């Protein structure tokens, strides 16, 4: 993308050159990951404690991000929210990409009716709008954390499958695949040792993009009140419960929104600024 050109400062590390934008984006992602892991140990206040006499309090010393609609410390709640948003999304995207990529590679290597059936079925799944799918599942089975993770994963499997299958079909026509087949290698070997190493880099970039989609969808569902249920709160739920502060521009409603934006924009920018060698599809 053009973003790579916007940052003229480039540095070299491990043989790749990185743009400044990419480095900053990577640092933001790293910071949120650390927060997600360490949150319970660094909270200034317990997330349930009412520490402010006023609701929707402004930013001030001691309550660095103000207070929410019950007078609870917003900084603590945002830090804990990172845990749910990043954790659930990461779990979901891992399941989605692992299953999608495995199925995609198997379909490409095996071909035939398995490929046709799988592709038709997953294409049909792809024709259900993602938010709608989420709404219907939540209506049916409720929204506990495992259900949320699985739902989000199922929604994004077809996309990961399509992407991996398209890449694997290209590799499948290469000479070394014919050689391996003639040698009598098993499907498992073909997938693991011949195809995967050749598509892993674009698949990882796709992993990042899908992570962004999942963060957005999870936040959207939580915002509708159909995602994480109180007393737990991810960033989307934090925006929802504090939406009453919008008319007075309370930090309680702005900060969680900014947290989501900083994470998703960073991942997008990082992928856009990955060294060409990693990002390119045709390796």
């Amino acid at each position: 993308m053009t973003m790579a050109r916007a940052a003229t400062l480039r540095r070299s590390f491990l043989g790749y050159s990185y743009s400044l934008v990419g480095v900053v984006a990577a640092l933001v992602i790293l910071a949120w990951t650390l927060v997600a892991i360490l949150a319970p140990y660094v909270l200034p206040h317990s997330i349930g404690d009412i520490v402010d006499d006023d609701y929707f309090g402004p930013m001030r010393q001691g309550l660095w991000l103000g207070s929410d609609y019950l007078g609870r410390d917003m900084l603590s709640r945002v830090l804990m929210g990172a845990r749910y948003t990043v954790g659930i999304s990461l779990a979901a995207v891992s399941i989605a990409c692992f299953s999608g990529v495995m199925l995609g590679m198997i379909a490409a290597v095996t071909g035939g009716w398995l490929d046709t059936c799988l592709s038709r079925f997953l294409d049909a799944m792809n024709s259900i709008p993602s938010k709608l799918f989420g709404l219907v599942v939540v209506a049916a089975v409720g929204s506990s954390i495992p259900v949320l993770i699985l739902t989000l994963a199922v929604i994004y499997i077809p996309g990961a499958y399509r992407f991996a299958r398209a890449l694997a079909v290209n590799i499948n026509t290469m000479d070394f695949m014919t050689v391996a087949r003639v040698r009598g290698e098993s499907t498992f070997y073909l997938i693991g040792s011949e195809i995967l190493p050749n598509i892993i880099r674009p698949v990882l970039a796709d992993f990042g993009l899908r992570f962004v989609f999942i963060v957005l969808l999870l936040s959207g569902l939580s915002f509708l009140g159909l995602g994480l249920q109180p007393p737990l709160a991810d960033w989307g739920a934090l925006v929802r419960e504090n939406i009453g502060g919008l008319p007075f521009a309370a930090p309680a409603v702005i900060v969680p929104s900014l947290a989501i934006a900083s994470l998703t924009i960073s991942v997008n920018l990082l992928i856009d600024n990955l060294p060409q060698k990693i990002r390119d599809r045709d390796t």
Partner: protein
Amino acid sequence: MTSRVLNLVLKRLGIAAVTLLIVLFAVFFATSMLPGDTASILLGQAATPEAVAGLREAMHLNDPAILRFLLWLVGLLHGDLGNSYANEMPVAALIGGRLVNTMKLAGITTLLSVPLALTLGITAAMLRGSVYDRTVTILSIGVISVPEFMVATLAVLLFAVYLKWLPALSSVNEAHSMTDLVRIYAMPVITLTFVISAQMIRMTRAAVIETLSTPYVEMALLKGASRSRMVLRHALPNALGPIVNAVALSLSYLVGGVIIVETIFNYPGIAKLMVDAVATRDLPLIQSCAMIFCFGYLFLITAADIVAIMSNPRLR
């Protein structure tokens, strides 16, 4: 239109029909998986076992799921969407007016965002690499990267809180004059236009840039054609297919966007109806709303594919 194109289009329509059937099936079964017995939920805690058994019989709940699916499908074909669990009204009556409201919202957004996004996308592609192009690209990536509700919150903060031009909530029932109408639709339409345009700008820009990098455009450049002539006469007619494809695909984002926007602005449309139905677990209503959304979405992505097939000169 040659028979080859006709064949491809018919095949695509056939796939769409099969997909629609699978999607209906999925929607029906997802909603049928609800734990707990629908009949006893409906009758409440005071119900006698006989009453529950009677209602189960009356609602065909004892029949196998596949039979119920077929009954539901036959009902759909007759235009019978069933009755709402929550207030016993026919679903069709509940949906009717709401659907019109949502279509109005979607229609106005389309009318605004298509010209806006095409202008920005095409000019950005023409001036590729300029400050203007970079600004448009960064802004559209920014809008795509954040959830729809954040665009809505920012719009409320800007137009309703700081500038005080518009009210934060909308309600169609109170429209008495033109200014009322503008004030009601402004916030939802602005939010949706941002979301849809950002997608459309990116796709249009990519489509035009791809056309601009073809050999015949380079040829036009080399023979000394002006920049505007090169784009308008040589590149755009060929980029038209991909652009219309991009427009239809972007409009399919309306389906997701409308769900968030109607909820946040309290707009009495079909998406708000569905979110409320999810909260009350009103299955017939959820099924019908989900079906309408899936149909709209499928219609748009199929249209996008068909335009792509028809505009491919190699198939003529």
